């Protein structure tokens, strides 16, 4: 089947089988920031992407669901030469070890900080509740979220002056 959709701000024509998951389609397109860390059960969050701004799990999402919608993957957020503030905060805080969970963590953080730049600890835990980190633990990840929020808040205030 064929449909068009917006991925990372660019309209794309997608061709896929009816049973393909979004994860499979993205990987085939070369968007390999989505990772598979569980057995397509939706339990690890490594495949997280933002659909119309909300985090979803690409490994259990049928690909046709994104037809005509707006999808953001980690590749659309920033890259090594132009990292997003959240990506910078993750590296500065040492919130990345093996990096496998990082794309999902960072996109879940983006969805949270799009809603509030002053998240409480509970709100951070709630937002990241679907993302497992199997190496660092969560202390530095929480630090990174708070650092990113503070930086984005400062940028917002500076822009409003």
């Amino acid at each position, binding site marked *: 089947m064929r449909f068009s959709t917006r991925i990372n701000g660019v309209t794309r024509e997608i061709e896929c089988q*009816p049973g393909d998951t979004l994860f499979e389609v993205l990987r085939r397109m070369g968007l390999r920031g989505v990772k598979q860390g569980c057995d397509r059960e*939706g339990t690890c969050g490594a495949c997280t992407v933002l659909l119309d701004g909300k985090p979803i*799990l690409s490994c259990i999402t*049928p690909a046709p669901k994104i037809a005509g919608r707006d999808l953001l993957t980690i590749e659309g957020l920033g890259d090594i030469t132009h990292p997003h503030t959240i990506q910078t905060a993750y590296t500065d805080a040492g919130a990345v070890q093996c990096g496998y969970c990082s794309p999902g963590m960072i996109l879940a953080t983006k969805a949270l900080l799009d809603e509030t730049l002053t998240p409480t600890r509970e709100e951070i835990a709630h937002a990241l509740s*679907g993302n497992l980190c199997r190496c660092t633990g969560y202390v530095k990840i929480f630090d990174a979220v708070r650092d990113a929020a503070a930086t984005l808040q400062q940028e917002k205030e500076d822009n409003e002056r």
Partner: protein
Amino acid sequence: MIAAYHQPEALDVALDHIANGATPIAGATGLYTGRGKRDLKLVDVTRLGLDKIQVTNDAVIIGATVTLGQLARATDIPTMVGAVLRKAARGIASTPLRNAITLGGNVAHVVYWADMPVALLALDAVVEVQRAGNASSQRPIADCLREGKKAWEGGLITSFRIPLATGTLGFGYERFTRTVSDYAFASTCVTMRVDGGKAADVRVALGAVQSRPARVAELEALIEGNVVNTELLQAVEDKVKDVVKVAPNFRAPADYRRELAAVLTERAVEKAWTWASREDG
């Protein structure tokens, strides 16, 4: 294998697909787990406009494809009904899963640990079912949760109507999991009002313990018309242990889950009574 994936934007088109053998899906969180049927034809029902929450004078009507994420943030649903639904929805799974799981799917694809049915049972929800070429029909939520032939077979659950009670009801909702996003080991929702100093209109629903979420008539009869005090709470615990048939489960021994259900139910009854008494007085 999935042979076809339809994504209509009109309800009658979706109903025709279902009448012709297509399986409705919404959040699709259970689609890829387990053994898939061969040549499965799917109709995605998330573009039919069934994702609205409407509050009327005497009821809240929740579209079947409202997600648990929407429900968890639905501060416009008034009274205890809103509090119960938000609390139940917020406790389920993780943020990205709540953005996918729908209320309709949580009932249609019911599993014994499903949490929203427990709240819907205690809130006396009525389920609207539509079929191609027929007028819509209404079924009590309990009919849709029974094992055996599905109450909506050949059709689609389109909405849930929950009465907004006149007067004040109290509620208690208790759930135990190992981690925040884990399946419940046991969950319970109790609603009641206090009339003349005694419990009235008592509803006790239990989930994750029996083979399906269900109300427990023996517990409701025990509490109805009585003052909830220490003796009654002990009797509630004893009654749960007596009457609740614990379904087999690899996650924890039956004795442990029976004890857990008894303790959680006793807590939920006490909370519902405290809330209803406070508002009554």
